[in-house]
């Protein structure tokens, strides 16, 4: 369980501060955490607790004030923009609350976009499989503004999975969706991640989603308040161990 080579994502005294003096805001304050390959981690906390800032730094979208972020053992905080963008398109899949599809491109083009940016050949069977899994087969040529919120987010998920990243970072992926759609999308995300052996880090307000995760990290004022295996998983884990 504690095998170091298993660690895909790790932070060391990660800090992000805004402002100075009396106005100093410690959005993320000395966070040390390790996430293993294939783990499903949910990050929870109140508004302003630093969840999004942490996730952005994990994905190299934001620069830390101090501290380190290791992906596959490499400190991305020291990377130049060129190398960082390679890491982003090869190792990380992002899913945003606002879907963030490219409006000028159709569903298929949005999905294959990160592959195109990397000049990778398309694994058609794999892509068709994802599209079918996410129920987008009929919508391949549609432009994003003609899709419903759920469809758009499914497209965003497909885009995140398409490059077969080792890490999927999702910021409130169901935040803009109604409960039923949200549950569907989340289930699809989890299934897909599992199917392709990807590590999933999800920020959420949603208690149910948090409970679906292998592990839940709770943040408050930029620090980790608690970090533990979620109750459901705990039970499952116990069953597995006792069984063994």
């Amino acid at each position, binding site marked *: 369980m504690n095998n170091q080579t298993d660690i895909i994502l790790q932070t060391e005294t990660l800090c992000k501060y805004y402002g100075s003096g009396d106005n100093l805001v410690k959005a993320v304050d000395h966070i040390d955490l390790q996430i293993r390959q294939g783990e499903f981690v949910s990050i929870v906390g109140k508004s302003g607790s630093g969840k999004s800032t942490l996730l*952005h730094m994990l*994905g190299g*979208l*934001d*620069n830390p004030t101090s501290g380190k972020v290791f992906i596959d053992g490499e400190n991305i905080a020291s990377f130049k*923009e*060129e190398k960082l*963008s*390679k890491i*982003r*398109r*090869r190792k990380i899949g*992002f899913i*945003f609350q*606002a879907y*963030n599809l*490219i*409006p*000028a*491109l*159709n569903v*298929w*083009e949005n999905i*294959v*976009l*990160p*592959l*195109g*940016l*990397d*000049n990778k050949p*398309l694994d058609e069977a794999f892509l068709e499989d994802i599209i079918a899994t996410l129920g987008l087969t009929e919508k391949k*040529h*549609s*432009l*994003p*503004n*003609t899709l419903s919120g759920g469809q758009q987010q499914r497209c965003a998920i497909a*885009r995140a999975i398409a*490059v077969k990243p080792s890490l999927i970072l999702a910021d409130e992926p169901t935040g803009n969706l109604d409960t039923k759609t949200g549950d569907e999308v989340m289930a699809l995300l989890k299934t897909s991640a599992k199917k392709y052996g990807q590590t999933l880090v999800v920020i959420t307000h949603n208690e149910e989603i948090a409970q679906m995760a292998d592990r839940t990290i709770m943040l408050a004022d930029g620090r980790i308040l608690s970090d533990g295996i979620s109750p459901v998983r705990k039970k499952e884990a116990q069953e597995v161990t006792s069984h063994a």
Partner: protein
Amino acid sequence: MRKTNTVSNLALQRLRYNKSRTLLTGIAILFTTMLLMAIGTTGVAMLDMNRQIYSQSDYHASFNGLTPGQVQTLSSHIRVEALSTAEVFADIINGKMNGVLTYTEVLRDDRTDAADSNPHAQTLTEGHYPEAENEICSSPIFFRRVGADPVVGGKVTLSFRVNGKGEILTKEFIISGLEPDVEIAEGIDDSRLMWAARVSKALLQEYADAGLYEAEPNATLRVYGENELSFDEMEERILSVAADIGLDEMYVNPNKEYLSAVTEPDTDTIAVITVICLIVILFSSLVIYSIYYVGVITDVQEIGKLKALGASKRQIAGMFYRQGAIVSAIAIPVGLLIGFLLPYLLFPLTLWAYRSGSAINSYSRDAAEAVVGQIHMFSLPVLLAAAAASLATVFLSLQKPIRMAKKVSPAEAIRYQENTADKKSRTGHHTVRVSTLTFANLARNKRRTAVTILTMGLSCVLFICVSAVLSSVSAEDLARRNIPKGDFCISLEYAHYEDKEYPENNLENLVQKNYFSDAFLSQLLSIEGVEKVERAPGIILSSTDMPSLMYEDKSRQPLSYFTREDVAELSAYLQQGSIDYDRMTANNEIICTHVYSFEQYGLSIGDTFSLTLHDGSREIPFTATLTALTQPDSNFPLLIMTEDTWKSLGLTCDPTTDIYLYADDEHYDSVKEALFNIVSENEHFTMYAMDVEIMIGRSGIDLTRNPIYLLLILITVISFINLINTMITSIVTRKKELGILQALGLSDKQLVRMLSGEGLVFTASTLLISLTLGNFFGYLFYKWAKQEHFMSISRYHYPLWESIGLALVLLFGQLLITLMISRKMKKESLIERIRNQE
């Protein structure tokens, strides 16, 4: 009241928020105002300068070839306000110097303010006008030229031929006065200058009494009615005065420039200026319109929010009008100021440049010099008109965008992304590359893309089009009129009428001397650096006893030949009649090659002339029929016959009058000097050197060409502002989208490639439009300009450098904009860009 404030405040805040858009609109309006004001001010300055220059010769008409009796009648004519006479007493004989001795006299001037009315009249810097028969006055440079010391009281000996004919006389004069000195540009050959000195009435009288001088005074006069009559009425009055003294209309020469300057305040200039201003307004309004148009498309969501909050259509329109008004309030005054200062500073410089490059036309040079410090440039009506035109441009440009903004529905407020028209799907590409992104974005905003390409394209078409004409205005082409081939031309000078007193000046006698013998040509060829010496087709002179304007006053016309190969070119420029080599040979038919002379001499197709051709001492009777009028590019003498007809004449003398020399570049200067020495040994030779001819041509060309280029460049700059705006808008509004692309792994390099790809599409389409349409219309424009004899262009020159320059400026300008914007964007972290919600 509060409502108004809210709208005004909103307008102001929006201007502050969209800084780059505000700045670009401001620059576009500023440039428009500046151009309009600068054009207007230049116009005012030109009109004023013309008026001042023409007022130096403020006579209404000149009457030529008068008898003393007619002068007498004129001086007491009731309609005549002022009268002065000018007569050329004699031609100065001094090597190759072209000079005359003149006498002018004011016979009458009824104007009460006569002394003040002509502030620029040439006055003497020293001494007095000639009174005694041996007195003379001119500018110091004249005296230096004839080898005398230019001091009042000094002596100068001159040789001259009274009335330009008869015996050469030599006389010693005493300098009675000096006119202001003039400078002559270096390197201008003496044969290209005209010199004059004034002598006294006493001298003329003396020669007239001795029967040696036949006065043929030309009178310059003013008639009453300058401020009441129109141009046509003035001309009519002048002709009626001429009729009263029994002078044929042919000898009346109205001073049209002055008359139109005082009667029709410069309709031509005003028309040209109006057209240029309209072009400026057209392009500027397209650009300003395009900036606002793109602004509305971009701000649909914001406008939707305002509507959702209860803003009425009127208030939305009010907001846009106020935005326009606020920017105009700053940009227009600044534009007016710069627009005034630009010509105020540049106009004297241009004139100065013109002066230093031209010594040929010393009259207008002096005149320009005299008035340059006193040109009146400021005009309140022009200033108000420029301001009004700019405001109107802004107002018009706002109409369509405002109509669009009014139509925006409140529902737009909740759409999160830019409207992608009505398309629901797109076929798309199987794989997505950087280029896919580029084209997807351009296709998303087809109208915006089209409007930008169109404005850029139109102004570039204008640029290429006008360049085609301007680049065809070539100093070299002008120079080629005197030196059709090679680098130098040695020309045999001969009398254009029959010179009875000095028959050695007549061509038929000159050719007998065989100046251009093979031995002479070999001598030239032996000069180091001379590569080739070539004889021009020969010329023989023709004369006739028939009454004809062309052969009036015993003048003679040059006659040469054309070959069968020349027929194609001659036919291509055929204006009247027909050209058929064999028919023409069979019937002794001839062609006239100058439209202007054809009209001036009142010729018509079918005219038959009984000519005498002068081949040395032999006279060949030759009856010719004029059967064609053409105006080819190549230089041909006025009248040409076929080569076969020419051969059939059986000329006994070598009819060569011009030879062309080719020199290698390295020895050009030494060849020039050697030729100069050879030529100066023979008074009948004149030498033309390519460098001098080009310099003479260029001085005139630059004066017209440079301001037009400046204007074109400014129009192109205005259109470039539009490209900048489109690119900035397209990037700024997509900041979030670009952020997402980067989050998905688009590297900085790929981003720059994508954005410059978009810019390249603009550049490439603009270039495509300007190089196709521009060249097409440019060629048509050239044809038209040639027909109108604009700056004597004769040959089409492809505007190669202008095209390359335009392409480079577009390419690099566009890349520079892309780099600058993406650099500015990088200052924000990726996540800030993704969060950006404009």
